[in-house]
């Protein structure tokens, strides 16, 4: 068998955590080989080892039939490997051509030959049908074009085997389809594509062979034709679909959060929210679906007072919360579980108690006349560790000693006990293991049963399907439409996530 890449027995540990455990992976030349697994299954670690960014603790790597030590990306590139990272590595102030030839500049008389680089970029871009303007600066280009540049970068290095790490995470469905077509044309030209994903639809759509990783181990390598979606899910999570819709009793609570015609800008000062309207009633969970980066984070930040709105209104129990500080909004009864928990949600170096104290450091019983009662703080934290089943030795443990799932539980514990009756929850289970995910979902349902109004932002549809009473879909800063959670129409949501109004589709067809 003609193998482009052959990994055997790859093991990689980070401290006590084993990210890759004796992984064997054989990729045939001329195929699209998908590596699928949940977040944290070890996909990215494996590819970083193959590409020389990490060194394995055990195992061998052969590329094109040669067993070798890949101790730097340079070695991998020499062997015809190219990697398109999940987070693009382009330099904003340089032009497209400069970025493509960075590290392999064309030089004349010791100086970089700009004209030649531009010309070669143009040739390359035409040859592979990836349209770019070589002389444009990268700053301000769309993610789709940035990805194109990344792929051209790899092609310019004569890569025959291309690794793509979660390439669709930031793309719209249309851009994803274009990407898949490009990949198919590469394979037709005799190249090999390794494609990392946790998205089973697209794996089923594009790949020839699928390798499933779970907890750092290979659980299966099969041709796609021998697999069904259902089987793939079972392989990924180790059992049949975990997220059934949670049973619930219908509630008709009072309006707790009301947002009308809300506009806001992102960090680059571009409009991120465009006339957002929504209401959340007590005792219901309103889900926000959408591809990451379509304004969900900005919405959460505006509502929690971390980002100014440029126009519109938002009312919490009838009180205007725009132009209020985060502290004032908290005191009005909003609790916020941030999407970026490592930066916003905790101080990794502080103790669990100190993390729990945030936002209530002046309130009884934790403080009296501005003096903190640490005994009370530790006592409360101890009770929360018990109640939320946080795996920690005690309240004085530093947050950094906990796993991602347990850190998230600390954040949830703090916010759910903050006394707020409106919960703004952004990505509750991102990067959290399955067991903890279920526990977190249980807790969110309990909060609903207690009559809290919950706005739940998630990029995972099955999570919303399990929890939400109503689902709003966001695209490009707008609410595209609303779907009932119980009778969820996945096709309609998919169209809206891509910016297409389903009503238009039916008219057109």
């Amino acid at each position: 068998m003609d193998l482009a890449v052959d990994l055997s027995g790859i093991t990689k540990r980070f401290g006590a955590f084993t990210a890759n455990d004796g992984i064997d992976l054989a990729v045939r030349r001329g195929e699209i080989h998908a590596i699928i697994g949940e977040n944290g299954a070890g996909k990215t670690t494996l590819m970083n080892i193959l590409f020389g960014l990490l060194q394995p603790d055990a195992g061998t790597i052969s590329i094109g039939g040669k067993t070798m030590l890949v101790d730097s990306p340079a070695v991998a590139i020499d062997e015809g490997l190219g990697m398109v990272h999940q987070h693009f590595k382009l330099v904003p102030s340089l032009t497209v051509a400069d970025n493509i030839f960075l590290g392999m500049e064309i030089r004349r008389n010791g100086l970089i030959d700009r004209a030649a680089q531009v010309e070669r970029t143009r040739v390359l871009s035409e040859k592979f049908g990836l349209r770019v303007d070589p002389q444009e600066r990268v700053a301000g280009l769309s993610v789709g074009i940035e990805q194109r540049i990344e792929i051209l970068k790899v092609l310019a290095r004569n890569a025959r085997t291309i690794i793509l790490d979660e390439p669709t995470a930031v793309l719209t469905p249309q851009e994803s389809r274009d990407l898949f077509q490009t990949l198919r044309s590469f394979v037709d030209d005799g190249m090999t594509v390794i494609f990392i994903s946790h998205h089973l639809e697209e794996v089923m759509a594009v790949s020839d062979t699928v390798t499933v990783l779970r907890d750092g181990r290979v659980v299966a390598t099969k041709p796609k034709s021998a697999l069904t979606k259902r089987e793939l899910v079972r392989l990924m999570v180790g059992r049949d679909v975990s997220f059934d819709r949670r049973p619930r009793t219908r509630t008709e609570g009072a309006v707790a959060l009301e947002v009308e015609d809300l506009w806001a800008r992102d960090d680059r000062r571009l409009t991120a929210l465009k006339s957002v309207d929504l209401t959340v009633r007590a005792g219901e969970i309103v889900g926000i679906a959408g591809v990451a980066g379509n304004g969900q984070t900005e919405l959460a930040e505006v509502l929690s007072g971390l980002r100014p709105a440029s126009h519109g209104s938002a009312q919490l129990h009838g009180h205007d919360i725009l132009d209020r500080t985060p502290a004032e909004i908290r005191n009005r009864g909003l609790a916020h579980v941030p999407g970026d928990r490592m930066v916003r949600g905790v101080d990794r170096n502080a103790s669990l108690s100190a993390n729990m104290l945030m936002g209530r450091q002046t309130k009884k019983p934790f403080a009296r006349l501005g003096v903190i009662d640490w005994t009370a703080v530790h006592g409360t934290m101890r009770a929360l560790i018990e109640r939320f089943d946080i795996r920690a030795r005690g309240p004085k443990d530093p947050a950094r000693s906990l796993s991602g799932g347990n850190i998230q539980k600390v954040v949830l514990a703090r916010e759910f006990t903050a006394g707020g009756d409106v919960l703004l929850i952004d990505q509750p289970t991102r990067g959290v293991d399955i067991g903890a995910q279920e526990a977190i979902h249980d807790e969110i349902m309990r909060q609903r049963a207690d009559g809290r109004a919950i706005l739940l932002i998630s990029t995972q549809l099955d999570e919303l399907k399990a929890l939400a009473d109503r689902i709003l879909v966001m695209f490009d800063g707008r609410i595209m439409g609303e779907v009932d959670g119980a009778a969820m129409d996945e096709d309609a949501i998919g169209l809206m996530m891509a910016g297409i109004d389903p009503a238009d589709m039916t008219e057109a067809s």
Partner: protein
Amino acid sequence: MTNRLLFRGLFSKGLGRTLAGQALAFAIALALGAVIILMIDESPVAVLMTLMRGAFGDAEKIAGTLLQTTPILICGIAACIALRGGMFNVGIEGQLFLGGFAAAWVGFAFALPPVLHVLAAMTLAVVAGALWIAIPAFFRVRFGTNEVVSTILANYIATLLTSYFTIFLFKRPGGWSETPPILTSAYLPELFSFSRLNIGLLIGLALAVGVAAFFRWTSAGYAVTMVGSAPKFAEYGGVSVRRVGFGVLLVSGAVGGLAGGVETLGVHHRFMEGFAPGFGFDGLIAALLANGSPIGTIFTALFFGALRAGSLLLEVDTTASREIITVIQALIILAVSADLMMRRRGDRTGERRWKF
């Protein structure tokens, strides 16, 4: 590798590891210092003995050490306050000079009853220090202007400005470039008859304990610490990062001014050009060495005070210059820096605080 693991195992608790690491760094720095002393043709042992004798030789010498410790301690506390809030106040030197001048001016220009006179002079010193940092602090929190550079540049202006006041506006008749002496009603009470050591030391100690307690036990202290170690988390939790940052710098500057007031009213009893050179920087170094802990700063300030006091004898008994102790201090900081402070900041997330 095994050795390193063993080392980690033995000192797995943060404090133990910190102490062991710092002791090692100290040893390296002292060894380097010895090499430099050899380079200038002196015996390191002789220098060390002279330093020790100069610092702790008799009661008078010990009092001299404590006298030098006082301004370093107070300046160190000023630095600690800023460091806790994630700010570098490198302008303590300037605040010290302005505070010193302000206290002297109240001391010689007004006649007030004893206790009131001291209080008035100290108050103005504190206000002067706070005002001097107010503009850099405002631009730091409002526009993100790097406070390290702005406060350093302000130092030069403060030094020149106070010299101008002293020489052109308030020059004492008789030629010296110093202000008239302050009235005895503005003197800080001395502790012993044989030394100028005054209650400034007690003020410094009380301040250290007070600031430590503030950070450990109060809601406001908690907020400052969180802004320093995780600003985005603090902002999310409802702490006004800008207000805390501004307040922290202002208080830090005020304490810097207080140091100047103590030095003027307690030691020199007048303001003169270059009246307290380097105390601001020594204080900053002492605070860094103590990793921003006010209690730790008491000990590092004492160490630097002893070096300073000892260095006075060094110039008498050997050919070495007293600036050799500055060299030793800098070496200690360099040796310790590799393992210092950074642990507090989130360099794991790749976040760089110092960027343009």
